[in-house]
Structure formats: structure tokens, C-alpha cells
């Protein structure tokens, strides 16, 4: 019995009433490029977001593309991005907001109530999950937010499906009058594939706020009936999704596997003949269809990443059919899956034979190559100076390239965006006798660090906050923020003054230094250490990558081999341009000319590279 059906979606007209053009082009695209293009095809009018791997490329593409004019902004945080996009969808526009999974925690406040108010224009919440936490602090599963908020959620298995789902998500959102959560994972966002894409949408809308206090003013008397209406809408949501056929059940034998999202493709690659397959791409799942599929099978194995969302549903509808998955340990609870991982699960459960030999194992003791702060990165000398001045302090830190300061022993905490100032004041209020020296990047400070600083000052904490101001959002690919002096669309704006913000928060000791000037940085930090209350040191120097792109060139430095005493000071500094060549320190062509190593060398052996000295470090 093959229960597959084709999609049945009513023919839609573009918002501007333009005729539908079914023209397609095949392109080789990154998942996020395909998603961005889908928003263009869907005639999106508005897009906002806050950068975060693996979601950042969508806005980065929309802000430079010329296929369709639309309003694009990098907002200061996910909540702000969400509220901007939600309001435009209330006003009837097609709106997209982008974030990574943990960004949803920041945007959760408006998210929950946006389900009550609903939307007029299509509102798609692109929230990228990161199983295995490739680039994240946790592995949370956005499907749980969808269930929590009673919102539909689409979960693509392939780049092509991601593209098609985003277009449909706008339609679906308008059909249901609800925001739609679109939840790809890292391996969809950052994989590439041949993709069929369509023409850019040409329609556009002018927004107008539809004043309606009973809908948009959520006082208790309005919230209660809206909550009831949202609950009453749910059966229709399920029905509409079931008609979309994102969830497909194919009966082929007496044993069944059910999977969702990208793991579906891993299952398909190793799925033997005669095993039934249930494929989940949209939530909420139609329980009746699920029950009908599970029934009559000898057993069911559920394979999914993240939380056991599908598995719990299957268990509820299994009616005695044995179910296996994360909850009984057949599938790992954490991390991400792969074809190889799914194959060993299937082998362990007897779906396929066990492999003949042992699995291939990596060669042991290959030196690790972790990511590292760039040669000339401003964070390294700042951390170096902190260590010199404070030594055994407590160092709360935050999220950005500077989290790599962990390798230098000056990052004691990293939990979420903007947490360093408040964790710092908390540790101080706990009675820890050591100095507290917190670090936070410029973008992270503007994202959600300001309230923590204000709170620390007002409530009388003793601590120093070092703002690592590199004028950009570095880790995620140099997205502009209000310190950069440029908007997402490239309009020049006056950069915000971090000094003025800190002073407005009530800090009286606010000093700005260049971390390339090590003696001055140390001097200022010593002064901060001597002061009472909350002190702020702004270590300011453009990110070395953006500086290079902007044409900044500094002469490289070199080591005088005769003067080098092999003391190891520069090696311990950890700059990737400094290495050992023939038992002496040497500076490779990676040097960007920050000159900090010359300031720390105790024997004065490092100086600007002379033309006549052909000494080259670098590659053997």
C-alpha cells in the first residue's frame, strides 16, 4: 500500500496580483542561499535577523542581492528582529525573521504571544538548529518551541525541500493567519545541492497597521479569548498541514522506521527493501494518520536528531506496537546523526546485517587544529594585558571570537549572549574575594549586555568590564552592528558611542585604549583595578580581517635570530604567525604587523622587518 500523495496546494497569486511564472533554473546553492532565494521568490517585503551560525547567510545574501528590492536589517538582537518583523506582518507584509536556535530564547517573549495575535501577511520565523553544537552553546530543539507556542513548524530534509518549504511557509502563514516556524539544521543550512529555483517575486505590499485593541492589546480580558481561539484553531492547522503532504507514510513491510528532518536522507541511503518508512516534515503531525501507519507493524524505530519529539508522539499512538528510539537508548540522545550513524543503529536493531569488519578509525595522535584567534587579532593583546594586571581574577566572558580566550585562561564563563556583566556582578555579590574582570564584544554588549551593566552599577557591584570593541560582529562573518557605522544595506550611519552608553549606565570610570599599544592598555587596566565600583575599559581596534579588507596594511615584523634567547615568551603569546624554525622563534607571512610581539619580547629581538633581511619564517 503506497499512501504517497502529491502536494495539493491551492494556486496562489503573488501579493501584487502578478501572474504566476512557473519558470525554473537549476543552481548549485548553499542551503542558506536557497532559503534566501526562496524568500525572494515568495515576494518577501521585509527581512530582519541577528547573526548566528548556522543562520547568518540568509540575511547576508538578502542584503546584497539585487533581484528584488526589500527592506533588510541586521537588528541588535533576536527579540528586536522578531518584533520588527511581526509588526510588519501585522501590517500585511510578507516578513522573514532569522536567527539561530538559541536566538529563539531571546525572541521567545514575543513569539509566545504572536501566536495569540496571529498575522495578516505571511510571517516566517527561520530558526536554525545546531545538533552537535558545531558552533553553539547547546543543542536545543526548536520543534519544542513550536509545540510550546502552538505554531506550525516545517523541518526540511534537503536543500531543495528547504527552498520549497520557505515559499510555502509564507502561503501557509497567510492561510492560517499564524506565524510559521521554519527549522532547518546545520546540515541543511550548510550543505550544498543542485536546486531548482524560480523567478524573483515582483509583487509588493504597502503596510498599514490594522488597529484592533482586542487583538493587539494583550490585557488579560483580551488574552483569554485569544488563547481559546488559538487552541480551537489547532485541528485546522493539523488538517492543512496533512493536506500539504509533508508527512508521508509508505507501508512496505512488517517493520517500520519513522524519521524527520535531514536524518530522513540518512535513513533512505541505507534503508533495505521491505521496510516501511514514515517521513515527518511538518508539525503538528496528524495523529490519526500516524496511528493508522504504526498499526499493523511488528515494531517501529524512530530516528531523529534533537529531542524525541516524533518518538513521543509515536509512543502515544502506538497502541501496543513496540517502539524504539532515543527513549530506550537505540538512538543517541545527543549530537547529530549521519549515514554512518544511522547504518549502525539499523544494524544494531537487525534491519541490516552487521558490517563485516571494524569501522574505519581515525589515525591517533594527529595534532589538533582548533580554531584560533587570527594573527593581529585585537583580543589577544587585550587578554594578555588583563592577565598581566589581574592574574588570578575571575573572568566571566561571553559569545564571540573572544571565547577562544579560553585557550589563554581568561574565559571562565560562556553561557549566553550578554551574560558577562550580570554573571560578573552575581559572582561579586556571592562574596568571592577575587577581582571580577568580565569581557564582552561590542555586538554582544549592544545585543543584551547593556542591562547587565546598568544593573551592576545601580546595585553596587565591584567589577571591571572590558568591552572588546572590534567594530563588527566577527565570528559570524563580519555583519555590521551599530558600532560599525554602516547598516545592513550599506548606508553610512554615525556609529554609536560605547563610552556614552556606559556613562549613561552610571559608570564613571570609562577609558578607551588601543590594545596594540600594550603599555598604555596595561596602564589603564591598572588604574581600573585601583578604582572602586564598576569600571569599564573599552579595548578598541578594528577586527584584523575587516581592516585588511578595508585596505589597512601594516609592515610585517621579524625576529633577529642573533638576539633571540629562545625564552619562549612570544611562542606562549600564541599568535599563529609565530613559530619555531631551526630552534629560534620566527615570524611567518601570516604576520599582520600589529607589533605586539615586539612589545612583549624581553630581549628586544623582534622589530619591523627590514627589506634586506631575507629571513622568512613560514613554510618549510
Amino acid at each position, binding site marked *: 500500500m503506497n499512501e*504517497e500523495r*502529491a502536494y*495539493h496546494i491551492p494556486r496562489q*497569486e503573488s501579493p501584487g496580483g*502578478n501572474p*504566476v511564472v*512557473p519558470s525554473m533554473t537549476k543552481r*548549485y546553492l*548553499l542551503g542558506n542561499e536557497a532559503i534566501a532565494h526562496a524568500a525572494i*521568490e*515568495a515576494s518577501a517585503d521585509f527581512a530582519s535577523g541577528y547573526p548566528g551560525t548556522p543562520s547568518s547567510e540568509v540575511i547576508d545574501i538578502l542584503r546584497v542581492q539585487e533581484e528584488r528590492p526589500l527592506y533588510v536589517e541586521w537588528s541588535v538582537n533576536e527579540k528586536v528582529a522578531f518584533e520588527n518583523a511581526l509588526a510588519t506582518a501585522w501590517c500585511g507584509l510578507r516578513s522573514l525573521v532569522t536567527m539561530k536556535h538559541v536566538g529563539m530564547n531571546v525572541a521567545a517573549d514575543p513569539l509566545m504571544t504572536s501566536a495569540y495575535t496571529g498575522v495578516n501577511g505571511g510571517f516566517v520565523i527561520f530558526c536554525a538548529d545546531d545538533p552537535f553544537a558545531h*558552533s553553539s552553546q547547546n543543542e536545543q530543539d526548536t520543534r519544542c518551541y513550536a509545540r510550546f507556542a502552538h505554531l506550525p513548524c516545517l523541518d526540511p530534509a534537503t536543500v*531543495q*525541500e528547504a527552498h*520549497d518549504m520557505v*515559499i510555502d511557509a*509564507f*502561503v501557509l502563514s497567510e492561510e492560517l493567519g499564524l506565524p510559521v516556524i521554519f527549522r532547518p539544521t546545520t*546540515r541543511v543550512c*550548510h*550543505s*550544498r545541492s*543542485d536546486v531548482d529555483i524560480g523567478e524573483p*517575486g515582483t509583487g509588493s505590499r504597502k503596510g498599514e497597521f490594522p488597529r484592533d485593541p482586542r487583538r493587539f492589546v494583550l490585557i488579560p480580558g483580551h488574552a483569554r479569548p485569544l488563547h481559546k481561539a488559538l487552541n480551537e484553531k489547532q485541528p485546522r492547522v493539523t488538517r492543512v498541514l496533512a493536506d500539504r503532504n509533508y508527512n508521508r507514510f509508505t507501508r*512496505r513491510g512488517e517493520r517500520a522506521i519513522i524519521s524527520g528532518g535531514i536524518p530522513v536522507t*540518512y535513513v533512505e*541511503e*541505507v*534503508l*533495505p*527493501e521491505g521496510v516501511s518508512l514514515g517521513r515527518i516534515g511538518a508539525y503538528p503531525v496528524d495523529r490519526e494518520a500516524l496511528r493508522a501507519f504504526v498499526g499493523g507493524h511488528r515494531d517501529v524505530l524512530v530516528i531523529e536528531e534533537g529531542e524525541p519529539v516524533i518518538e513521543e508522539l509515536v509512543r502515544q499512538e502506538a497502541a501496543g506496537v513496540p517502539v524504539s528510539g532515543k527513549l530506550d537508548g537505540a538512538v543517541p540522545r545527543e549530537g547529530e546523526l*549521519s*549515514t*554512518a550513524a544511522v*547504518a549502525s543503529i539499523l544494524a544494531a536493531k537487525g534491519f541490516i*546485517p552487521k*558490517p*563485516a569488519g571494524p*569501522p*574505519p578509525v*581515525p*589515525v591517533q595522535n*594527529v*595534532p589538533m*587544529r*582548533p*580554531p*584560533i584567534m*587570527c594573527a593581529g587579532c585585537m583580543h589577544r593583546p587585550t587578554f594578555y594585558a588583563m592577565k598581566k594586571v589581574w592574574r588570578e581574577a575571575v573572568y566571566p566572558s561571553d559569545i564571540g571570537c573572544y571565547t577562544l580566550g579560553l*585557550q589563554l585562561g581568561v574565559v571562565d564563563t560562556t553561557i549566553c549572549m550578554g551574560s558577562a556583566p550580570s554573571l560578573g556582578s552575581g559572582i561579586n555579590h556571592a562574596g568571592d574575594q577575587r577581582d571580577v574582570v568580565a569581557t564582552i564584544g561590542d555586538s554582544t554588549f549592544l545585543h543584551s549586555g547593556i542591562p547587565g551593566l546598568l544593573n551592576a552599577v545601580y546595585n553596587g557591584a565591584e567589577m571591571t568590564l572590558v568591552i572588546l570593541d572590534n567594530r563588527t560582529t566577527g*565570528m*559570524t562573518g563580519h555583519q555590521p552592528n551599530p558600532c560599525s557605522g554602516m547598516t545592513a544595506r550599506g548606508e553610512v550611519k554615525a556609529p554609536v558611542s560605547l563610552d556614552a552608553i556606559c556613562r549613561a549606565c552610571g559608570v564613571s570610570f570609562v577609558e578607551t585604549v588601543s590594545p596594540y599599544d600594550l603599555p598604555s592598555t596595561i596602564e589603564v587596566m591598572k588604574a581600573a583595578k585601583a578604582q572602586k565600583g564598576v569600571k569599564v575599559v573599552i579595548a578598541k581596534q578594528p577586527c584584523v580581517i575587516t581592516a585588511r579588507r578595508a585596505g589597512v596594511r601594516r609592515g610585517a615584523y621579524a625576529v633577529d635570530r642573533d638576539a633571540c634567547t629562545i625564552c619562549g615568551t612570544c*611562542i*606562549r603569546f*600564541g*599568535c599563529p604567525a*609565530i*613559530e619555531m624554525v631551526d630552534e629560534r622563534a620566527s615570524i611567518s607571512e601570516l604576520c599582520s604587523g600589529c607589533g605586539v610581539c615586539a612589545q612583549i619580547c624581553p630581549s628586544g629581538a623582534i622589530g619591523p622587518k627590514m627589506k634586506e633581511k631575507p629571513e622568512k619564517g613560514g*613554510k*618549510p
Partner: protein
Amino acid sequence: MTGSRVPQGATAPKEPELSRGGGAPLDRAGSLQGGWGPSGAGSFDLLIAGVGGQGVILASNVIGEACLIEGRPVKAAETHGMAQRGGSVECHVRIDGRYGPLIPPGQAGLLMAFELIEALRYRHYLKPGGKLVANRLVMVPTSVYTQKLEVPTEEKVLGQLADLGPCVLDADKKAVEAGSPLTQNMVMVGAASLFLPLQVESLEEAIRRSVPKKTIDMNLRAFQLGREAAGGCRD
């Protein structure tokens, strides 16, 4: 515009799921050595390994674009974000790939390594008899110096790869010869082209489409030099 093309669009007709009458036949999947072999995935799997900043992703894009030119499906996965800051970078490319983008260990037909320590790190992805094309370059990770580990030498690392009968070339040198050290990734693509199931013309056209206009000639030259340098490797 929007919804109307979704129905015909993609998922259902493109799914290999059932049109193929099921995935790997049991006997074949079971006979694989360790990994999950040419299990019916039907793809030629290529792993590209290197260090952040070496142009690994562009090399991968050229190969993907060449698949598009030949009208073949392709799936690829790449490293983004934090790992790019000088870290180890891996790109999976599955030519004729219809399933997920990740290559199972023990299944790659070709490993393209832009650096020798990275070749060592990823060699277990190669299937028995798979080919290694490697750049003669050792970039010592900074952690080796800061943690005072034994510094890996070119000779030692090559020794650990010798059993693969690797095709080793000096991509940096060839790139300089082509006009810029930045073209070392196209030198590597040229060398790998001898072992890829793709036409040379498709790869050249893919380079034209993928690199900045002003650098097309230089990159094509790099491709050609790489191809020549690896010429002796083909048995």
C-alpha cells in the same frame, strides 16, 4: 509566483526514496568493509580537507558547479563559523549524490588534502583503494608550539601516508607559477581532476563561473599546471 510551483517543485518527484525500489540491498550493505561502502548510494564521494583560509570551499564549489554543468545531482557539506578561524576545514562532496551530504568513513573514492596533517586526520574516510591527492605542505598548528608537542615534519607525515600511494605535489609553487599563491586551490582541483568522474571541460567552465572575472585566466592556468603536475600519478 509562490505556492503554485511548490506542488510540482521538488520533493515528491525528486525523492529517490521509492522510485529506486528501496535503498541498499541487504547483501551489498552487509558485505561492506567497515564503512557502509558503495551501498547503493551510487555516488562518487570526495572529501576535501585543509586549513581555514586555504580556499577549500571554493574548490568544492567548482566541483559542485561542474556536476551541475553535466546535469548530475550533487550533495556537499562544508564547515562554517568558528572552525574557519585557522581551524581544520573539511568539505564533503558527493557526485551523483541523492541522499544526505555526509560521506560515511571508509567510503570516499578520493581525498584531496591541501595540507599533509589534514590528510592524516581524514584518511580514514578513504575506501580501500581510494586515492589521496595531497599538497606538499605541513602547516604546524600553533598549539604544537604552545603545548610543546613534537613538531610533525613533512617526512614523518608522508611516511604515515605512504601506504596510500599518494599523489603529492607542491601546489604553492605551481600556484605562484600560475600567477598567485591564492590559486593553489585550483592547482589542487587540476591535480584531482585526473581522478574525478568529471569532464575537464566541465571543470574549466565551472572555474570560469566560480572565480572573479579578472582572475579566470590565472585560475585556469593553475588548474592546468595542477593537472600536469599530477600527470605522473595516474597508473
